[in-house]
């Protein structure tokens, strides 16, 4: 019964979850602010993108930017780019990114690093999962310091190609760091979530390309958003393309300049190369913001100081090849999803390299006018590409924070996630004279069961109307431009600004999407609608592909109902 013991005991471990984006080159942590907005937390050094680097000097651990700076002086005891090694076999890893930091070594077929992480001179072998644990522990601490509350749970983002062993290794490493992993979510989906969780966002059916251009690798995915649910249609990865490829161009440029002046190649000196790399990265980032950037390094090699500038045009010229690789990757994934650029409604740029304005501009040229390119250089309201994954994870964390562990597990079980998706769009056919038009109501790739409601106008005079529900297929219509450009047909009233008349080159052909009625499903009639009235159509598709269709006049009493049987298994 001590006297000065009036401190309030720690509350029963209440779950407080954050979102963590754990990247190969940098990580971010995010939370939902009391105002309900996702915000990325700065660590104690003020960084929102915390380099995934750990460095050890005399037993002291450095993390983030401080650790990254150690790549120059202390590369042997600095661990970087370790995320992709987690849960992998030593034989299957690509060790090139670690060329200038601690090299991975093999320990019982897993990956480890030999570093001096204690005050003693002994070299310790630290497994990659232990490194991950230490990294996550630091992230957790930074978040807890910022929020002022113990953080004990998280939603962590992973690339789409993370296999089960890697997932398990990450969950185990996080557990070791005192973080309960509520869920692992895919990075591109987290990016879409970050945009969709904004209060001004509406739930719409759209096809999104997420280009995650990271530090050492790039991943692109095509995601179908249908009624707020996401389905990945295709992914493409390039493990060599990323910010580092762009850094290399800058490094080479300045190295050549240096050789011209001093007849020494700074890249031959290990420390010189590390310095160039670190400063080159900073210069590249500066070029994303301004049109000019300088680089100055003290004692680059042989004690010679180096200082120079580069402008953006020069940089873009030099990197045109690499930029083309990025756009190629995007086009490749669209092809893989058996889609056309015309189908894409949004392109989300995520990851550090997405700040580069030229990449977004190149993408702008690929896609039609109606496609929104969500990158800082093309859209003022775009979110910071580096923060997207962490924000999305934070949104998901806030959604499932209150759930029981069991509830979450049940919800993400394949029983629940594996769902049938519509192959063709379902909509209404309009016939007016000769023209046959189709208006999609449920788009292709909609997860079932699904329900959609729509209202249509009726002829001015009123009377009975005819509703023909059918399947539609999207076709690409290619027309050679004629001397007199013909009036653009609004192909899609839903996306009413779908005409693209801006880039009309004389030689270029016009491509547009056209809906074709494929297979009729049901016909309904609404009798005696009032003049100026509206008709509401509700289509409900069951997971067994059975349909319930209801049509009624808005404000009217009676409704026309009917059901369409699910197709027999032998059919189709």
């Amino acid at each position, binding site marked *: 019964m001590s006297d000065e013991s009036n401190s309030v005991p720690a509350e029963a471990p209440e779950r407080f979850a954050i979102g963590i984006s754990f990247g190969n080159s940098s990580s971010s942590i995010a939370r939902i602010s009391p105002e309900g907005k996702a915000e990325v937390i700065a660590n104690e050094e003020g960084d929102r993108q915390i380099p995934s680097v750990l460095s050890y000097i005399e037993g002291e651990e450095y993390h983030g930017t401080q650790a990254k700076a150690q790549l120059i002086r202390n590369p042997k005891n600095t661990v970087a780019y370790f995320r992709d090694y987690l849960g992998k076999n030593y034989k299957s890893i690509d060790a090139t990114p670690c060329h200038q930091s601690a090299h991975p070594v093999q320990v019982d077929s897993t990956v480890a690093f030999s570093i001096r992480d204690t005050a003693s001179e002994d070299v310790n072998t630290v497994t990659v999962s232990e490194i991950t644990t230490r990294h996550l522990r630091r992230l957790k601490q930074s978040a807890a310091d910022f929020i002022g509350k113990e953080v004990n749970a998280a939603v962590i983002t992973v690339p789409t190609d993370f296999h089960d062993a890697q997932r398990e290794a990450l969950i185990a490493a996080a557990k070791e760091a005192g973080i309960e992993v509520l869920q692992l979510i*895919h990075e591109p989906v987290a990016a879409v979530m970050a945009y969709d969780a904004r209060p001004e966002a509406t739930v719409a059916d759209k096809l999104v390309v997420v280009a995650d251009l990271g530090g050492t690798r790039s991943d692109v995915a095509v995601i179908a958003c249908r009624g707020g649910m996401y389905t990945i249609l295709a992914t493409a990865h390039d493990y060599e393309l990323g910010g580092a490829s762009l850094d290399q161009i800058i490094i080479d440029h300045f190295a050549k300049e240096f050789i011209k002046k001093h007849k020494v190649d700074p890249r031959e000196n290990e420390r010189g190369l590390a310095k160039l790399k670190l400063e080159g990265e900073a210069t590249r980032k500066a070029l994303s913001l301004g049109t000019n950037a300088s680089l100055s390094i003290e004692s680059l090699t042989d004690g010679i100081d180096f200082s120079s500038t580069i402008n953006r045009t020069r940089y873009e010229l030099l990197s045109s090849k690499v930029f083309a690789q990025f756009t190629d990757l995007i086009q490749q994934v669209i092809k893989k999803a058996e889609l056309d650029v015309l189908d894409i409604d949004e392109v989300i740029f995520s990851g550090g390299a997405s700040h580069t304005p030229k990449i977004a501009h190149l993408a702008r040229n690929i896609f039609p006018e109606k496609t929104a390119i969500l990158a800082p250089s093309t859209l003022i309201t775009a979110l910071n590409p580096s923060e997207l994954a962490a924000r999305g994870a934070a949104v998901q964390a806030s959604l499932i924070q209150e759930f029981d562990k069991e509830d979450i597990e049940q919800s993400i079980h394949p029983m629940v*996630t594996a769902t049938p998706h519509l192959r063709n769009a379902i909509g209404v056919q309009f016939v007016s004279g000769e023209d046959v038009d189709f208006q999609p109501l449920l788009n292709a790739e909609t997860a079932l069961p699904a329900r959609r409601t*729509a209202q249509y106008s009726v002829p001015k005079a009123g009377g009975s109307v005819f509703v023909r529900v059918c399947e539609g297929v999207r076709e690409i219509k290619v027309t050679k431009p004629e001397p007199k450009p013909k009036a653009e047909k609004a192909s899609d009233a839903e996306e009413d600004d779908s005409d693209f008349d801006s880039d009309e080159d004389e030689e270029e052909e016009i491509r547009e999407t056209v809906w074709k009625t494929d297979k009729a499903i049901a016909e309904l009639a609404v009798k005696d609608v009032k003049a100026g009235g509206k008709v509401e159509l509700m289509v409900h598709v069951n997971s067994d592909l059975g349909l319930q269709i209801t049509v009624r006049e808005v404000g009217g009493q009676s409704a026309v109902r009917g059901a369409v049987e699910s197709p027999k298994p032998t059919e189709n």
Partner: protein
Amino acid sequence: MASAQVFNITLPALPEGWSADKDFKAVGSVSAATQRNLEPVGPHFLAHARRKRHQRTFSEDERIQAQQNVKKTEEDEDDEISEPEDPMMLSRDAKDWKAQDHYAVLGLSKYRWRATPEQIKRAHRKKVLRHHPDKKAAMGQTDENDNFFKCIQKATELLLDPVRRRQFDSVDEAADVEPPTKKEAAKGNFYKLWSKAFVAEGRFSKKQPVPTLGNEDSTKEEVEGFYDFWYNFDSWRTFEYLDEDVPDDNENRDQKRHVEKKNANARRKRKTEDNTRLRHMIDECLANDERIKKFRQQARAGKDKKRLEKEAEAKRLAEEKEKARVEEEQRKKEAEETAKADREKTKKAKEAAKNAAKKNKRVLKGAVKEVNYFVEGGDASAGQVDAVLGDVELLMSKIDHEELAALAESLTAAGKDGAAVKAAYAAQAKQLVEAGKLKEGELKTFA
């Protein structure tokens, strides 16, 4: 997607001649679906998962969710924090906030230390709505200093700070429950009265949950656990709230230090007093606890039983030992007697055998004499007699009793027939030679 999309497209008029039952005609079916994995993220997915797991349809799910939402708002309004406000309290001076009952100010007197921060927030909101100075002004009641409003703010501020709230709770006398006197407890509601006192005291425990006093049927472990807990009670109770104000002017440092020291002493003293008080309270409860007496009796009864059992066991063992000893003696005696009888019997047999042997030997010697020492006619010479008798002696010394008896028998049967006697001897001698007891040619006369 509850809201409908609105399209500005005109539906075609009903073609002439189209008719169907109930105006509906199914003409086809949807193409086969593609199986894909949904990404398990986002609010809409969670709704989808909920529907799928509970097998609800869209409309069912909407209805259930709506019901749940309604329930939540109802709960909020359910526990009205409304207590009649004491006019004395309303006219309190806000400067004297230390003496006010913060819970009563917020209308939480029935909850006191049990009130959750959520309840405090709600109570504060409620009180502010009623006592806000702007409202008072609008109603024409003017209170220059907004005293009660200030009291409310002070109370909320204090109760929402966990450390300061504990300081107040420590000295919140209204929440104390006096332990019952002996007389009250003797009336039969010992457990009820004492439990209340211990629950009130248990709010200071650092360890939660606090064990309950239980009732007359509690087990010994429970009761012991309860008293163990209370004798090792770890309390967070402090008496800082009763501190004298430390003068914060920088003018008189000594005075400040003096007051601080005094406060510290007072706190320590109160804490010690509180510990002693608690100790006494537990002692008293323990002394009057019927269960302790019951357990003691049970223990004593148990001990007695054990002792009796032990004694009985010892007695039984002694008896068994005695019995075994007697039996052993008996057995020994019997053995001795039989041994003795055996010895006598063998002795007799030996003697009999000896006599028989003597007799047989006599027969042997007699037999040769009968046949005149194998001499045909006339008396046998002394030398012959010696040779024959010598051989007979030698033979006798070599053969055993059975052979001797058999030989004697055959000799008796032979009678005075010299040849038969000689043959009998010869047969015997041959037997002996074959057995290796005699050398061939040793018995000259029986060769």
